[in-house]
C-alpha cells in the first residue's frame, strides 16, 4: 500500500469535496433558509415563499443528496488513490 503522508493528494482531494459540500450545506440552510430569505422572497411557493420551503423542507432534502453524493465521490477517490478497503 502506498504511504499517504500529510498533505497527500488523497487528503487534499477529500478536503476539497468536504469544502464543496459544506458550502452547499450552509447555503441552503443558513443562506436560503434564514439570512438570504428576504432576497428570494419574490419567488412564491405554495402560499408562501422559497425561503420558507428551504427552511422547512428543501434544506433537509438537499442534506440527504449531499451525504450520498459525498459517499459516492469518496468511494471513487478512495479507489483512485488505492486506499479503499
Amino acid at each position, binding site marked *: 500500500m502506498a504511504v499517504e503522508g500529510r498533505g497527500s493528494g488523497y487528503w487534499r482531494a477529500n478536503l476539497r469535496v*468536504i469544502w464543496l459540500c459544506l458550502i452547499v450545506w450552509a447555503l441552503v440552510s443558513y443562506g436560503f433558509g434564514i439570512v438570504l430569505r428576504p432576497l428570494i422572497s419574490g419567488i412564491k411557493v405554495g402560499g408562501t415563499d422559497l425561503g420558507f420551503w428551504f427552511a422547512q423542507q428543501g434544506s433537509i432534502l438537499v442534506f*440527504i443528496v449531499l451525504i450520498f453524493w459525498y459517499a459516492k465521490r469518496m468511494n471513487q477517490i478512495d479507489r483512485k488513490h488505492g486506499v479503499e478497503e
Partner: protein
Amino acid sequence: MSQFTLNLLVIGASFALYIGIAIWARAGSTAEFYAANRGVSPVMNGMATAADWMSAASFISMAGLIAFTGYDNSTYLMGWTGGYVLLALLLAPYLRKFGKFTVPEFIGDRFYSTTARIIAVVCLLVVSITYVIGQMTGVGVTFSRYLEVSNATGLWIGAALVFCYAVLGGMKGITYTQVAQYIVLIIAYTIPAVFIAMQLTGHVLPQTGLFGTLNEGGGKFLATLDQVVTDLGFKSYTGHHNSTLDMVLFTLALMIGTAGLPHVIIRFFTVPKVSDARSSAGWALVFIALLYTVAPAVGSMARFNLTATMWPGAQSGQTFSEPAVSLDAIETSPELAWMRNWQTTGLLNWEDKNGDGMIQYYNDAAEPGETLAGVIAEQGLVGNELPTVNNDIMVLANPEIANLPGWVIAIVAAGGLAAALSTAAGLLLAISGAVSHDLIKGAINPNISEKNELLAARISMGVSILVATLLGLNPPGFAAQTVALAFGLAASSIFPVLMMGIFSTRINKQGAIAGMLAGIVSTILYIFTYKGWFFIADTNMLPDTPAHWFMGISPASFGTIGALINFAVAYLVSNATEEPPEHIRDLVESIRVPRGAVGPTAGH
C-alpha cells in the same frame, strides 16, 4: 372492543416483539456488546440510528413547537437534520476507522492523555443523563395516559423492558430492537398525518399538502393559516419574527451538538466498513426525514384544525364570519369529546370569562388589530378563553381531533413509547460503555479480562437504568434543559475536540484539555447566568429575556460560541506548547485513510 383494550393489545404486541428480538440477539463478547460486532448493514444501521436519534421530544413535542411558533422554529428542523451532514463528512468515517468502542477512548488515545479521556467521560455523562431523564418521563406520561396506570408504574414497566434487551443484548440487542421501534414509530406518526392532509388539502403526502390548496374555501393552505392566526392577534405563521443572528447560532448549535452526541456517534461503530459509515449517515437522514418533513405539516395542520374548531368560520379563511364555538358544544358534542378527554390531563383548558356561552380563542397578550379590536368590543371579551393549549397535544390528540378509528390512537401510543424507549436504550449504552470501558478498563483496572469487562458492562447498564428511572420519577431542575445543556455541551466540548483530533496533527494534549475546559466552562456559565445556578429557580443573575442576552444570543444558542472558544483556545495553547509525539501523527494519518479498518470478527 374498548379503547383501553385496544391500547393494551397494540402496546403489548410491540413489547413482545422487542423481547423476542432481545432473546434472539444476545451478546457474547465485548465487541458484540459495545459495537454489535461491526456487522450491521448501513441501511439497518441508518434505521436504528433514526430510532436512536428521534426521541420522545421529536415524536411528541416537535410538531407542537413548530405549530405555535411557525417559521422561526424551522431552526429545529434544520438543526436536527443538518448535523448528519457534519457527522458523515467530518466524524463518522474517521472514528469508524479508528475502530474502538467509545468516544472518550478516541479522545484519550488521540491526545495521549487519561485526563482528556476523563473530561470527555464527564461531558458524556452530563449530556446523556440529561437526555435520558426526558425519555424516562416520556415513557411514564405515555403509559399513564393510555394504559390508565400511575406514572411511576409506567416508568418501572418501561425500565424493566429496556433492562431485558439492553443488559442481555448490549449494542447488538439494542440495534435490532431499534429497527423494530423505528418501524412502529414511523407508522404511528405517518397514518394520522396522511388522514389530516387528505381532509384539509386532498394531498396524500403531508409534505406536498403543506404547500397545497385547501379543499374548503380554495385558498392556499399556508396563506389561509397566516390570515387566520393574524386575525386572532397571533404572529404570522410564515413570517420571520426572531433575531436573525440568534436563529443562525441556534441552528448551528443544534447541528454541531447533534454531531457531537456520543450515543449517535457510537452507532456508526457498528457498520462493517469505513465507506459504510459514510452512506449509513445518509440512510439515517432518509429515515429521519420521513418524520422531519411530516412534522411541519402535522404542526401547521393541527394548528389550523384547532383554530377552526374554536372559530368555525376559519375553515374557509373568514375567521369572524361565524360565531365562536359554544360552551354547550364543547361540553356535550360527541365530535368535541377529545377536548373533554384532554381537559382531564390538564393539557387543555377553557373558561367562559365573559359569560356569553361562547369560547373565544385569541391572543390577549398583544395589541389587537383593527378587526380583532372590533370583535373584542362587540362581544365584550375580557381575555382569551382558551388559556391552556399544551404543545404536546398537537401530536397526541391528532387522531382524536380528526376522528380517526381507535386502532390509530393505540398505534400512536405504541409509537410514542417506541420513540422514548429506543432513545433511552442508546443513551444507556453510551453511559454504561463510558463507565465500564473508559473508567473501569481505561483508568481503574486496565488488566481486566474480556469476560469480566462484559460483566462490568452489564452491571453498569443495570445501574444506569436504575439511576435513570429514579431520576425520571423525580426529575431534577436540569431535566427540562435538554436543548441548552445536552446540545450546548456536546457542541462546545465533544464536537470540536473530535474534529480537531482528525483534521489537525498539531493540536496536542495541552491544547485539547484547555480547549474542552474553556468550551464547557464558558457555555455552562452563560447558561447559569440566565437559567440560574445549577438551574435552581431565582438564582439567575440576569433575566432570561432577549433584551438582557449578550448581543441577543439566547442561552440555548451559546453552544456555537462555546465551540468557537474551544477551537481558539486549543489552537493557541497547542501552538505555544510542544508538538504531539510522532506516533500520534501516525495515528492521525492512519484514521484518514479507509484501508486497514478493523472488520467484523467471526460470530459467536
